[in-house]
């Protein structure tokens, strides 16, 4: 899905558990219908970010892994 995110959160310099906590706070600040793109190099993010999205009542639209740059990109929408 190609969608321009409303908010972009670059967590590539952060390590566990900071990317997930920054994502959690960013979701809370989203207006309904807005989307959030999160970039991270944290290897556990592929487990923890879907969990925090679920707990926050948001929707994970996509999760892409860029293996060359060791970066995962998440697109999240607040309903």
């Amino acid at each position: 899905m190609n969608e321009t995110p409303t908010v972009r959160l670059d967590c590539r310099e952060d390590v566990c558990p900071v990317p997930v906590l920054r994502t959690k706070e960013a979701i809370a600040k989203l207006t309904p219908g807005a989307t959030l793109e999160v970039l991270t190099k944290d290897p556990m993010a592929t487990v923890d970010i879907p969990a925090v999205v679920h707990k926050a009542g948001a929707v994970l639209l996509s999760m892409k892994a860029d293996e060359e740059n060791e970066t995962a990109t998440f697109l999240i929408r607040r309903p």
Partner: protein
Amino acid sequence: MQETPQELAARAILPALRGLVARELVREHKFTHQKAADLLGLSRPAVTLYARGLRGRAIELRRRPDVLIMVRDMADGLASGEIDVRGLMTKLDSAATYVLRKGYACDLHAQVDPELKGSGCNLCMTAPFPCSYFHGWKVEPGSPTR
């Protein structure tokens, strides 16, 4: 005096983190010292000392945004009932390991053990990051968390 990183964590980092969580509960969540003490598993006088910044001052963590985001998460979790004192212990332990791993306690460690200064010590920084942080969550049925 020689002190292991874990001894440093027990003596300085964990009290500092507890203090920040106590202050967050009192200042942001407007809890009484007694209510904060109940949530933290501490005595009321201990919370009073933490809230006034008279305890947990050995290491300065208030200017570390990455640490403060963990502190807010812990306080929010306690305030909402998402975590209990056991969950808090898991998160505090992980947060203390994080502080060590990021090298935030190296200056303090070198004050205690001057031989460390200039020694190239990177013992803490080679340890794995504390991904057990989220084990403090209460897992709900159907949640994809581990």
